């Protein structure tokens, strides 16, 4: 079985390197401050004890007050997995650093999150809409997106 790293384990591994990055430690996940997510991800990818070389998925949830982006990570080397969360605030232009320089697999997924949820990823090589056309108004997966315009 793939071992799910507990939040405390991840926190212990990250505490020494990023003492201020973690805002919340859950049972099986940790929440990382938005501006630190790239550094944390790079550390989790590179650190030999963690070796999260595989980004399973990257998706976002609209919690009205903020956008939560969830990173499902897996280490193929050790067969363990971890869940990272981070939050982007503001409804106009929520911004997070892009992790596509760490995992290329994030490239399309970040574009999808931008297209449908409106979270912009800084440092992404091609931050454009992916499914909808340029000029589409709004981001449909947001909770305040009206399905039928009045």
């Amino acid at each position, binding site marked *: 079985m793939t071992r799910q790293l507990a939040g405390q384990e991840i926190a212990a591994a990250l505490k020494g390197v990023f003492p201020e990055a973690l805002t919340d430690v859950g049972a099986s996940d940790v929440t990382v401050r938005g501006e630190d997510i790239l550094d944390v991800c790079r550390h989790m990818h590179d650190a030999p004890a963690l070796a999260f070389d595989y980004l399973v998925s990257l998706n976002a949830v609209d919690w009205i007050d903020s956008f939560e982006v969830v990173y499902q990570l897996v280490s*193929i080397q050790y067969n363990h997995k971890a869940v990272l969360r981070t939050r982007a605030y503001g409804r106009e232009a929520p911004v997070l650093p892009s992790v596509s320089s760490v995992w290329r*697999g994030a490239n399309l997924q970040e574009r*999808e999150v931008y297209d449908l949820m409106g979270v912009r990823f800084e440092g992404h090589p091609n931050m454009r809409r992916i499914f909808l056309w340029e000029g589409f108004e709004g981001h449909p997966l947001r909770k305040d997106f009206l399905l039928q315009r009045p």
Partner: protein
Amino acid sequence: MTLKTEPIIVNIGPQHPSTHGVFRLRILFDGEVIHDVEPVFGYLHRGSEKLAEERTYTQIVTLTDRLDYLAAMSNNLSYCLSVEKLMGIEAPERAKYIRTIMAELMRISSHLMGLGFFLQDLGAFATPLMYMFREREKIMDLFEMASGARITYTYMRPGGVNDDLPPEFMPALRKFADEMPGYIDEYERLLRENEILITRTKGVGVLPRDLAINGSLSGPALRASGVPWDLRKADPYEVYSRVQFDLPVGQIGDNYDRFLVRLEEMRQSLRIVRQCMQQMPAGPFRADLPMLLRPPKGDAYAHVEGPKGELGFYLVSDGSISPYRCAIRAPSFINLSLLKEMLVGWKIADMITIVGSLDFNMGEVDR
């Protein structure tokens, strides 16, 4: 005399015989050689994730059918596992075996289509494709017995399956499992050693191991690159921990490896099906659940090894009858992450085969 040459941009798709749906590639060609690639998605975007937020948990099963319409059972399974994980329940034993059988038959069917269209892209003028349609028909007949439908099954439910297997299913399945290895051998004999196939696929579209991992590829495309990563082994769900099967793994990750991995996986799937048939217990086929599911607040991510790769559903529940968020990890979509790296430097003909060997499905890519 100096020749003036200029690169040209060609749109491959969305209407094109071998783009597997409505995929579009904007390609910068210098002569026949690809210099730059930009995939364009979205022609089949239906907003499944948004639709899911408006449906009850049981209704969403029908939406999952329409993701990868060549592998609807695997989609159902992944979604149902995710809901079960969210609710903290498990399906009864018999349902688990039924689901495993269905998922493996679906894998065979999807690989048949993948290989057939791959060979079609190579220019083998539909003969292998038609052979493979012949066996897919048999699988679809089996599914029709169980679920009443041939493409969009909606067979599985959170907590089990919709209905028990009809009595004629098992003999038919046994007959199929006996016949199928011969057919797989037939495909191999038809083309595997063909010199043209070998020169067209060997060393073409090589995806190195580390790049494949970094690009989040999954499924046969990842295993062909030499990564023995299969969720059925790595993170067993349903009854995969109780059956024996081997994991075909490629060596260098070229088109030929992807071709061989799919061929071999069909055999292994048959092995699993046969073991499941022997082990299958009697008993209930569905957990006793209310009509309207109200999972507790929280989130869950469950994944299966679908025919195209890791298929996962990330569900967030707010305690109501429909999910707050239903995010789909679509393997076809993410497998296209490295398209540019794989295509640049190859010719048009190779482009078609490389895209074909990835075996994606636009219903799942665009969702």
